[in-house]
């Protein structure tokens, strides 16, 4: 499908909602929805979210399933305890990944996401929480040592501090780098040119 390549971000997009089939002799077109309605998150009803809800009550903000994938969103105050219980009591022994998503327009700017897997249950889930810009996230290195470098990368890219991390430093970018690249307000054209010029002797950062 070579036409896909034409999809330039700055050029105006052709409307995607045009029906693909030529409605040749359709006299009265039914009012088709402009966009096919996507799947919606459904409540996740299982023993695990119910156990969490009965334990933490309203601090479990939602427990949903979206396209066969389960996630819980919890209050920032209890997220460390939720993760601890998932590991100790629900056999989520493998921390697959942790990352953040930046929503600069919201009050709680960062959404933290922990992706967990349980070998015993062969089950995956995500734990999410919202934190303010400048607030620390709890470190889970003591629960899963795998989180060590993942948290360092998250700090490197978003500037989120992890409370209790043994060695929180930049990992991919050089130590003297200014700014946190994966924040939405970090413009790729205005990256740290000063560092590049001083250390690499290149005029432009690009």
């Amino acid at each position, binding site marked *: 499908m070579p036409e*896909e*390549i034409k999809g330039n971000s700055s050029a105006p997009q052709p409307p995607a909602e045009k029906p*693909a089939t030529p409605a040749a002799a359709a006299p009265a077109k039914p009012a088709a929805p402009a966009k096919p309605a996507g799947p919606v998150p459904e409540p996740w009803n299982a023993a695990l979210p119910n156990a969490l809800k009965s334990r933490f009550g309203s601090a479990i903000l939602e427990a949903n399933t979206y396209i066969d994938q389960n996630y819980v969103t919890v209050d920032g105050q209890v997220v460390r305890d939720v993760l601890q219980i998932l590991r100790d009591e629900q056999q989520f022994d*493998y921390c697959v990944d942790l990352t953040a998503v930046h929503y600069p327009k919201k009050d709680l700017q960062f959404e933290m996401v922990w992706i967990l897997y349980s070998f015993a249950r062969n089950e995956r889930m995500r734990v999410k929480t919202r934190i303010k810009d400048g607030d620390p996230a709890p470190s889970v290195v003591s629960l899963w040592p795998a989180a060590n470098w993942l948290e360092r990368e998250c700090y490197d890219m978003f500037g989120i501090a992890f409370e209790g991390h043994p060695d929180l430093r930049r990992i*991919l970018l050089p130590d003297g780098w200014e700014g946190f690249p994966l924040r939405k307000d970090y413009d*790729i054209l205005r990256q740290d040119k000063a560092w590049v010029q001083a250390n690499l002797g290149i005029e432009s950062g690009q």
Partner: protein
Amino acid sequence: MTEPISTSSNPAGNDRTFLDSNELILNMGPQHPSTHGVLRVILKLDGEKVRGTECVIGYLHRGVEKIAENRTYAMFNPYVDRMDYVASVSNGLGYCLAIEKLLNTEAPLRAQYIRVIMTELNRLASHMVWLGTHALDIGAMTPLFYTFRDREEILKIFEKYCGARLTTHAFRIGGCIYEAYEGMEQEILDYCTFLEPKIDEYEQLLTTNRIWVERTRGVGFISGEDCIALGVTGPVLRASGVKWDLRKAQPYSSYEKFDFEIPIGVNGDTYDRYLVRMAEMRQSVRIIRQAVAGLPAGPIMAKIPKVLKPPVGEVYVSIEAPKGELGYFVVSDGSTQPYRIRVRPPSFVNLQALDKMVRGQLVADVVAVIGTLDIVLGEVDR
């Protein structure tokens, strides 16, 4: 886990060391032939014993995740090939599966089979690069020439199929764009027949070779529990006795239809990881044979819109790449560009186990352990 190593002041402090000598800080890399790219390892040594390591990474950091936010879904597809560039087909498969999941669609069956064939060929190619370079690092030069000679045939198949040898961009979101070329099935079957005795040949060179066994057995031990705690996946995890492979545990792209085994090791050392990867190559040949034999007819592209606008939502999809679990966490805000793409790279997470595996071992073993972890720095740094 990793205690920070001071490189400026006297690192020995008041610790009594072996031979009462001072501890030595040795810098390895970033330009070092056995680091497989630009990896810098700072070693804290006591004589020849390694007392600690610190990895300095990021030399190949290109900001792939930031690039993704400034491209459309289809435009970002070729970029993922540049992460693990010796297994680019796997990267593309994981990405396409993730976006298809976000669109709540699936590739047609024929496309799924072609994807399996290409991905398993790529696994063979990736393991061959690993074997050649790993053996070269610890003194066996011949396997490098043998494996690169035989890998060449796989690259030729890729070239015929999609026009590229290394960064293939073989698949598209929704299926495949290229139909199997004339005579591809027979060529791949012939290659399988050609390769099996070659795998025996590699094994003849190494499996009972005394130097190889001495350099690998008992070296770089890691237990199954430590692997899980450190998030280590792939052949390293399986060599420590954990029978877990995403192709079996959570099958994708029709892997449930194929009959194959998950080879596992017992001792969790470099030798067992070698055996596991050799056995995996034979299993890959087995899968390719079944997929070619059962290649169904039909379309190769699902009906997806030309301009992709996935509904608002987020998914995490992962596959068993040659190095371990390769995952994509994709957040869509309903526009043509991904709001956020997070790549879960197996090499990055596996490299974290280096410190655990080399502590208390000899300097020369560091080279063996970096080789056995099978890292690609393009994926570590992204």
